[in-house]
């Protein structure tokens, strides 16, 4: 670009002239267009705010076109929330060459075209003098709001294999195909605190090596929610994904699966009868066959239940998985890893709180029961506790401690919020009776606040004391880790508890796989199998029972 070049555009005067010619060809005001394009460039550089830009040209655009299709204030604010906003949108407009640029122009409304002109060249040019424009070219343009994942509390898992069973039933898996797998292990090198147990679904890695090595794109990450899935119609069964996965979560369909697709579909319709769902429990909302057991000759693994996540099994199933639903001790928290208020993120953020919340939910008395109990009782703490049958001092201390350490208590749509709301209802019943839960008397009485000295003012509940109460009650995990983090896979499962060391070795768990039966869609009840090789050996031609 020469120094005499007065062009506002990074591609220079020549390009600018071309833009002007293009605009002259239209019935609209070229000067206005060029002016808007120049200012649009300023928006991408951050010299002009988007709101100001909108404001400045609204009248002109209305006059010229009779309509202003550019983002409205509301749309603009919405876009802002989703990161980047309008400027990002402008920057991300990209094209391969002259022809497509022109085609794109035609497709855009003329008003938007004015604006787009500036952005187009900017994204194309990538001139060094436009750092923020050039930077916008890097990285992915697709926005992903959801990344499904889990927090799994290994200390809470009791090894009952309910999740393994639920997964086998949900997906009609063959014996030994343990998409969800739970194992106990011995680990000499580890500290001897907590239990050595691992719950191992697919990690749904953000940088999934299985996907990288797939020669067909059958193994893929779903754009909208980051689930790593296998397209059963594309997979060629080379098994390289199983080889590349460091966790060993893949299970190949070595022979004809036990349960037919007809049975799966019939069962799915039966389950969701009357709810108006058309789900066959195999096809996701993109129309790809990625759910339930694999057909013969292709690879399968834990899917994190896309039929649920797509709302095909009813809205109430969105954000849950079969294993999570089935877990008696609530050790699995499934949710959006991008949302800091999701179940897994909140749980991982403060496991003691999560554990206490889950535990206490069993004992929180209903508002109605409290009202009945408290009828006629005095409204001081002691009398209330005495009158209430289902509420003792310890429970109330924990309930209150949970409230004290929680931000946005009872707000949001995560699963734990229901638990919080149960507590709030109980609190409301107590307050209605006249017990002020934030009073000095109650908080000090529950040991959740320090009693002030005579010349001091009461300074409310103590968050650290509350946290200590929760830790003492529910315990805190040894560590918070991701499995084989050094493999660079960026897994979407956070574990709480003991991390298995390199010398960890599996031992028998409390419940044997063979002792648990899965009820499949074809009506059979089949015991689970731990070691699939033993199941498969039946079909091996010339199996001599020896091993190399």
């Amino acid at each position, binding site marked *: 670009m020469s120094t005499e070049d007065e062009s506002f555009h990074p591609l220079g005067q020549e390009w600018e002239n071309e833009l002007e010619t293009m605009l002259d060809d239209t019935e609209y005001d070229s000067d206005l267009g060029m002016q808007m394009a120049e200012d649009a460039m300023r928006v991408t550089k951050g010299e002009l705010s988007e709101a100001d830009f909108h404001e400045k040209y609204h009248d002109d655009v209305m006059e010229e076109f009779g309509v202003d299709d550019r983002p409205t204030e509301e749309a603009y604010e919405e876009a802002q929330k989703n990161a980047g906003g309008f400027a990002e949108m402008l920057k991300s407009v990209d094209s391969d060459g002259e022809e497509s640029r022109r085609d794109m122009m035609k497709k855009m409304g003329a008003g938007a075209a004015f604006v787009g002109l500036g952005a187009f060249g900017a994204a194309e040019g990538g001139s060094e003098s436009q750092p923020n424009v050039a930077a916008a070219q890097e990285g992915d343009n697709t926005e992903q709001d959801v990344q499904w994942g889990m927090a799994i509390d290994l200390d809470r898992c009791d090894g009952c294999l309910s999740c393994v069973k639920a997964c086998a039933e949900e997906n009609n898996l063959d014996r*030994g195909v*343990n998409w969800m*797998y739970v*194992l106990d*292990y011995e680990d000499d090198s580890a500290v001897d605190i907590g239990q050595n147990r*691992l719950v191992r679904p697919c990690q749904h890695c953000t940088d999934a*090596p299985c996907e*990288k*090595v*797939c*020669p*067909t*794109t*059958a193994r893929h990450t779903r754009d909208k929610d980051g689930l790593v899935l296998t397209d059963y119609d*594309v*997979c*060629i*069964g*080379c*098994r*390289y994904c*199983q*080889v*590349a996965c*460091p*966790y*060993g979560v893949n*299970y*190949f*369909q*070595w*022979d004809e699966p036990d349960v037919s697709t007809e049975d799966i579909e019939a069962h799915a319709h039966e389950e969701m009868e009357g709810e108006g769902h058309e789900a066959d429990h195999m096809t996701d909302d993109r129309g790809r066959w990625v759910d339930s057991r694999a057909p*013969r*000759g*292709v*690879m399968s693994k834990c899917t994190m239940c896309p039929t649920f996540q797509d709302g095909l099994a009813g809205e109430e199933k969105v954000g849950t998985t079969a294993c999570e639903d089935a877990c008696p001790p609530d050790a699995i928290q499934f949710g959006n890893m991008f949302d800091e208020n999701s179940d897994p993120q909140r749980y991982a953020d403060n496991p003691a709180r999560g554990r206490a919340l889950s535990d206490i939910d069993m004992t929180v008395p209903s508002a109605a029961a409290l009202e009945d109990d408290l009828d006629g009782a005095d409204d001081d703490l002691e009398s209330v506790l005495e009158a209430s049958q289902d509420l003792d001092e310890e429970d109330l201390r924990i309930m209150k401690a949970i409230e004290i350490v929680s931000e946005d208590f009872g707000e949001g749509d995560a699963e734990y919020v229901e638990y919080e709301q149960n507590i709030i209802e109980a609190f409301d019943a107590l307050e209605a009776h006249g017990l002020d839960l934030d009073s000095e008397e109650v908080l000090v009485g529950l040991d959740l606040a320090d009693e002030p000295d005579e010349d001091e003012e009461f300074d409310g509940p103590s968050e650290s004391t509350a946290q200590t109460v929760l830790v003492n009650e529910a315990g805190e995990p040894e560590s918070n880790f991701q499995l*084989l983090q050094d*493999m660079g896979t960026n897994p979407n499962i956070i574990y709480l508890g003991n991390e*298995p060391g*390199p*010398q*960890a*070795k*599996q*031992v028998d768990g409390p419940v044997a796989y063979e002792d648990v039966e899965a009820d499949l869609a074809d009506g059979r009840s089949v015991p689970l199998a*731990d*070691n*699939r*090789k*033993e199941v*498969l050996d039946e*079909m*091996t*031609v*010339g*199996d*001599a029972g*020896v*091993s*190399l």
Partner: protein
Amino acid sequence: MSTKTPSEDDILRPMHTFTKKYVLLFVISALALGAFLVGWLYQLQQGMAVTGLSDWGSGGGVTWGLYIGAFIWWVGIAHGGIILSAAVRLLGMDRYMPVARLAEMLTLAGLSAAGFYILVHMGRPDRMVTSVLGHYHITVNNSPLVWDVTVITAYFVLTATYLGLTLRYDIARLRDDLPSFSPNVGGKQLPDLLAPVYNVLTLGYTKAEDKVIDRMVWWVALAIIIMAPLLLHGGVIPWLFAVLPNYPGWFGGIQGPQFLTIALTSAISGVILLSYAFRRAYDWDHIITDDIFRGLLLWLGFFCLLFLWLQLQQLATGSFHPTTDHADATASKFSHPMYVVPMLMVLGVLVYIFAQTIRPSLFSKGRAIAAGLLVLTATLVEKTYFVLSGFWYPSFSIYDGSPGEYFPSVIELLSIVGTIGMVVLFFLVLSKLVPVVELHAVEHLRGDHGHGHDHDHESVDESAEQPEVEA
């Protein structure tokens, strides 16, 4: 060395004879291939469960087994074959010219066997075209398996071109003596069915092209020599394993050179066996001379040395102060017969070859054959162990089912016999159609000149007839 003078008749002999032994070998090979094809059909019908494979990890088995081990073995033989032949053409190692075409043909046969193994190994081979080619433009950016398919195809095309080009010279000159096949079907005399094949192969041939073809072949050879360490057995094939950090036995840069040395040892062994078979069958003592065997043995010794040296590197780094996962993987090598025995076999061959260079009287063709057989067996077993040991000793070895159990099923074992049968059939058929020894080679041995070799090299007579090792 024989005093007979090599002639066109010599190299035409396979096409002009038809013996009981030929028929017997053909039948045996066809039965071997047929038996495996039946096994494969059964596998296609029943699913891969008929193999001894299972899922690694909680599945208690290994994901890949003998099929992949044999796949690497065949690719190694194939890639080594083309490197050998390219070295002959590129470096003017005219001594080995009589076996160069055999090496090229071995490459085509080996690649065919390897390609066949890819299909046999897959759960849904019917989707090869739609799923692999359909997404090629995406997957070629990431998947080592797609790189594999790419280079195997590339080398098949390159070798076929190479062979096709050099065949034109021979076919054009020997056309009148090549076989014809005009069967009488139901009293009706059909025209010569082979004539179109030869006509296509020599389409537009003129003597003027000899010089050009010679240069073209030289450049193709150069390409092969350059690409061998980058893309063949020194690159893409080992990357299938070496890029995966979760298997300490596989991961790391040494697999490139290690695979290359294994490929070369097995390919030279294959060429020794093939050459011996043809020499014996068609009295080619004066064409494929003892000297060629001595020379090939020396090269075999050299590559056996490199093979063992690189294995030693891995044993050293895996045992001095290894990480936990590396320690397990290396400890297995010291104790597992599938590793120890092949190493001892290669070491034995190496010792023999060095001994016979010092004391040439130790050389005999029988021993050369034995050396070749030992190395081929050792490389097949070692490659299979290499594949299995990855799954046996992964970094994440917490599972009770790890190391997994595996013993190849009858069908998997049959695949070895079947593919060997397939390769033998390939040679049996091809040797009836075209000369497996180049006319060039005969002309060289006779000391003919003026057939278009314009690059300088030392006197043909000297280089071809002076034995590499004085007996």
